[in-house]
């Protein structure tokens, strides 16, 4: 194999790093986001081709086989995953990246002559392992392989403390002596720490933790770049670490949360575990025809879409209903909460797909003052994002999150299947208010029935 000149190699790696920067820049704006992602992929391609042509490598067929296996598994899964499951897939990919960084560091340990390099090794090991195990737990939570509620047990803070202490000890020993056995122990401690870190996080906060672990993996990759003396890994990892940190904070802010609160809140016992059982308090339920009358004779209707609309795939029916109402001269808007659904931007994507005119999509800040002028707020498969407990109940897991003020509307209609709570697992008192009616059933079916009834008015 012809080997590239070291300077050419370095330039190609630098080009890849620049592509990554441009990718992140592109992802900042809807217009350039997709191209940005492609630029990033191109940068990765450049880097991978470069490594093959610049390093004397044995086992090339095996490596190519491993790459084929990795792509062969990941690409189809990524291509076929359902919208609602994307967050957990991102978590999964993030976790395996962290795992890969940890393994690379482990294998480089015997070659790490310098104590400083061993510092980078233990950092990568520990952070990579935390990211791997933590991501696995977030995956399990989002995929509902385990409870989405915070898991706390009495000894948790003590156990976490002990694990971290042991990890620091092991790390110091590895830096001093370079023992492989202790490095394996460190890896194990990192895995345990990752699990303990994520267990107490409530399901609603999981996306933020994914973002945080994403930043962690970035840092691990940067450190592995220091171990291998590879500038590209350093730059790419640092970029992800830094931007991931900012992004985590921005996401937490959008949900009215602080990152520290999410991670340590449960330790401090601040989190009250919500109930997932159905409530049996009396509610006012009504027929599709009743709802159609309410809507058809209103002046102004605000539709609040939520996770339930997404799972029911009811966005097209919702858009049709809005059109039907508008053709009756009624003003209809959609109120978009930033964390409605299961990922930020979920509702925009969903309704965009259903061709809802974008003038009708209103951000929370914009629409909140207008609920008081609305005759009907139609809440379709949403729950937490309209739950007044976020403002009133200090102990609630969603306390502090800004909500859509549907209670200000003259009438509130919920479309949902049952009295089960939403993601955060807490009851919504708004359902028991006098101005509220519920129409039970799958969101898409209910919308279809209401649409039919409106047309028949």
């Amino acid at each position, binding site marked *: 194999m012809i080997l590239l000149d070291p300077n050419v190699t370095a330039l190609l790696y630098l080009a890849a790093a620049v592509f990554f920067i441009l990718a992140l820049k592109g992802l900042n704006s809807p217009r350039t986001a997709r191209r940005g992602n492609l630029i990033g992929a191109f940068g990765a391609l450049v880097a*991978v081709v470069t490594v093959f042509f610049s390093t004397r490598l044995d086992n090339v067929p095996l490596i190519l086989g491993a790459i084929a296996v990795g792509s062969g598994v990941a690409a189809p899964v990524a291509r076929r995953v359902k919208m609602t499951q994307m967050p957990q897939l991102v978590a999964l990919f993030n976790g395996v990246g962290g795992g890969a960084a940890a393994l690379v560091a482990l294998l480089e340990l015997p070659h790490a002559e310098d104590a400083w390099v061993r510092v980078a090794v233990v950092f990568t090991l520990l952070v990579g392992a935390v990211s791997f195990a933590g991501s696995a737990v977030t995956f399990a939570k989002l995929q509902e392989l385990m409870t989405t509620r915070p898991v706390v047990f009495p000894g948790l803070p003590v156990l976490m403390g002990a694990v971290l202490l042991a990890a620091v000890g092991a790390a110091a020993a590895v830096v001093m002596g370079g023992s492989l056995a202790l490095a394996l122990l460190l890896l194990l401690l990192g895995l345990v720490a990752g699990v303990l870190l994520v267990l107490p996080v409530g399901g609603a906060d999981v996306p933020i933790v994914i973002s945080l672990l994403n930043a962690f993996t970035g840092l691990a990759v940067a450190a592995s770049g220091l171990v291998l003396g590879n500038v590209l890994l350093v730059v790419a990892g640092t970029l992800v670490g830094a*931007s991931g940190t900012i992004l985590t904070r921005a996401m937490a802010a959008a949900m009215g949360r602080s990152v520290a609160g999410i991670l340590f809140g449960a330790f401090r016992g601040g989190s009250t575990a919500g109930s997932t059982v159905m409530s049996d308090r009396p509610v006012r339920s009504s027929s599709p025809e009743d709802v159609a009358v309410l809507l058809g004779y209103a002046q102004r209707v605000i539709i609040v879409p939520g996770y339930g609309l997404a799972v029911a795939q009811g966005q097209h029916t919702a858009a049709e209903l809005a059109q039907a109402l508008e053709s009756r001269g009624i003003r209809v808007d959609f109120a978009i909460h930033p964390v409605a659904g299961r990922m930020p931007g979920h509702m925009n994507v969903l309704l965009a797909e259903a061709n809802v005119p974008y003038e009708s999509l209103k951000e929370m800040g914009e629409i909140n003052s207008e609920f008081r002028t609305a005759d009907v707020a139609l809440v379709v498969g949403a729950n937490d994002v309209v739950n007044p407990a976020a403002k009133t109940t200090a102990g609630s897991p969603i306390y502090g999150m800004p909500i859509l003020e549907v209670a200000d509307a003259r009438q509130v209609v919920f479309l949902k299947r049952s009295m089960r709570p939403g993601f955060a697992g807490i009851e919504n008192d708004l359902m028991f208010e006098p101005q509220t009616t519920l129409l039970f059933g799958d969101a898409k079916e209910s919308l279809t029935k209401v649409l039919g009834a409106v047309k028949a008015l």
Partner: protein
Amino acid sequence: MDGISLLTITVLAVFVGFEVVSKVSSTLHTPLMSGANAIHGIILVGAIIVAGQATHPWVLAVALLAVVLATANLVGGFVVTDRMLEMFRGRKEKPAKPAPGVGAPGVAQPETKENTEATR
């Protein structure tokens, strides 16, 4: 490359990372996270180097595992991000209503705001 160079590069990359995402709208948080996630899959380069220099079969096995994992991160990450972003375009192709200033309308929240203000 010496330590000081690497440190300088790291510090500058931190600033680039901070600045580059500091103004993104919440609509794009998920794709941005996912895209950044794909980028750290570049650890694949490290895994390839380690695998290519492995002599002991155990080392090789672990290194190949790292290659598989890193590839999954890299390839899967870019593909899933692309899929997310694909949906963001849905609207451009068949706009329901002709409206001023098209272009990824469903997600361009600032634009939406300006437009609605202008029409008030």
